[in-house]
């Protein structure tokens, strides 16, 4: 078995075995879907299909949240010591990162698909081809999100720090992504954040497919917050997807760099030297 497959299989098995986590996480996605769909419906007036517009935003947002939260898996591996077993194995650091990113992405996509099915019940109108395309977009964006999450996890190194850091980043990014509040009504001074936010682009491509918006003109797309005109230059949903992939690749490279540092697991190593040894590194 290839090391990436081994890490993926092991993480998925761990996920399936922790039943509480599976149900808790699925429940959260459902709850968000139902709450937001009904609460925010009024803010979406003036759109052709407000329910589909909103539901698709909530689905991709739940994919984002699940991806980031699953990245904390690596933190329990660090605290249980298992990370050391992986780090001393002759596996390329790119493979370790890829294995973890893929496992987070697969779990997020599976949950996203379940949420999408509920969305369909709630009034999202999509065909089979659209469902397949949406699942593919979920997987690609979930990989980018997982790379971001994995990087945050390796930076924070322990669970409380990760919780704080991730909610600090997740909350604002979620609200300026256009998923809940259309980007068209976001005040101008926040627009730079909107355009730097990878979630903006994943939301736009996701909606573009979910609403079958390929028939719309560029102006109409910009008007509905699915394309963005920055100083006359228009970022189409497909370009947005490319930007998401680039952001993901950038964070993937950062993770690999982090794992490449031999002293990555110093916390654990220093703890192993209790009773003398070396003081923990700053």
């Amino acid at each position, binding site marked *: *078995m*290839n*090391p990436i*497959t*081994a890490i993926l*299989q*092991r993480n998925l*098995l*761990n996920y399936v*075995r*922790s039943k509480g986590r599976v149900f808790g996480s699925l429940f959260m996605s459902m709850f968000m879907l139902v709450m937001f769909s009904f609460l925010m419906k009024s803010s979406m007036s003036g759109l052709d299909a407000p329910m589909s517009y909103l539901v698709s935003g909530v689905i991709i947002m739940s994919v984002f949240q699940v991806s980031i939260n699953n990245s904390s898996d690596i933190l329990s591996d660090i605290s*249980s*010591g*298992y*990370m*050391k*077993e*992986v*780090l*001393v*194995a*002759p*596996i*390329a650091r790119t493979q370790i990162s890829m294995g973890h990113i893929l496992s987070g992405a697969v779990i997020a996509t599976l949950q996203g698909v379940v949420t999408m099915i509920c969305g369909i019940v709630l009034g999202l109108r999509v065909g089979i081809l659209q469902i397949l395309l949406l699942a593919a977009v979920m997987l690609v964006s979930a990989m980018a999100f997982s790379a971001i999450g994995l990087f945050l996890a390796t930076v924070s190194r322990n669970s409380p720090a990760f919780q704080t850091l991730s909610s600090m980043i997740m909350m604002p990014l979620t609200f300026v992504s256009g998923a809940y509040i259309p980007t068209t009504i976001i005040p101008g001074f926040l627009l730079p954040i909107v355009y730097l936010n990878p979630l903006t682009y994943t939301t736009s491509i996701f909606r573009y497919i979910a609403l079958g918006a390929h028939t719309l003109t560029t102006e109409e797309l910009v008007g509905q917050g699915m394309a963005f005109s920055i100083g006359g230059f228009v970022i189409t949903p497909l370009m947005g997807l490319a930007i998401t992939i680039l952001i993901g690749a950038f964070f993937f490279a950062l993770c690999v760099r982090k794992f490449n540092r*031999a*002293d*990555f*697991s*110093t916390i*654990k*190593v220093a*703890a*192993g*030297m*209790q*009773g*003398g*040894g*070396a*003081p923990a*590194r700053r």
Partner: protein
Amino acid sequence: MNKIIQVEHFSKKYGDFTAVDDISFTVNEGSIFAFLGPNGAGKSTTINTLCTILDKTEGSLMINGHDVCRERSLVRKDIGIVFQDSTLDSQMTVEENLKYHCSFYKVPKNEVRERIDFALDLVELTEWRRAAVGSLSGGMKRRAEIARGLVHDPKVLFLDEPTTGLDPQTRANVWEYIQRLQKQKNMTIFLTTHYMDEAEVCSKIVIMDHGKIVAHDTPENLKHQYTGTEVDVVCTQTEPFMAALQERGGSYRKDGNKLVFHTKKAPAALEILSAHKAAITDFEVKKGTLNEVFLAITGKEIRES
């Protein structure tokens, strides 16, 4: 004899703190090599650097001809490690832990089953192969960890404090596995311990204190060099015996009707014992232990953790 590990002028500093201070040593292939010393002597730092998870500050470390700090992935292939703290995946079963380990180390698919069977058999965990690691006792976990460390047939097996925190019986078992492994597979075993008595079975010992090597030899030579033989004699009449001891020179100690004295070699005591044979009710001859070696070298008892 092939030198499988070569360490020259290795130093490791954490800021101003020097954990390991310019040490050099070699390990012969197929031997059991022990690093002894109190907690904080620099043993774990050295072993972690050899295992590619710490960076050195200075010096050169080679395993099987590969530079530990520059050819990490080649070194990682050749070594197996059992860390001081558990690094098992507690949600997985014993067998799954070993199976994923085999994937990480690219063990050929058709050998995986056989290797896992061998490793589990060696540490007597065959019956527990499907048990979740989290449900095992501390001793069983350590055994599972040893099995995992050797399942990919490493050239060198590192064991960092393999017996710390185990009950005496499990400790004895672990030593048995280690010796069996060295004999059956001719594996080089590099271990650290602060239980001096356990190091007797090792081919070579390095004693570390305060980041420096203070002794490097076989257990026999160390004992010979640093300790003598202690003779305890219980006699009906102590005076004539004491007179003889005074005449002989050297110190002795009186404890009721028991006399304690030291000789460099055991036969040297024979003469004085046979001369006062009639007065002796009991006697005991004690050989030096590694604990005494450590005491003689560092001037302190090894600390228990």
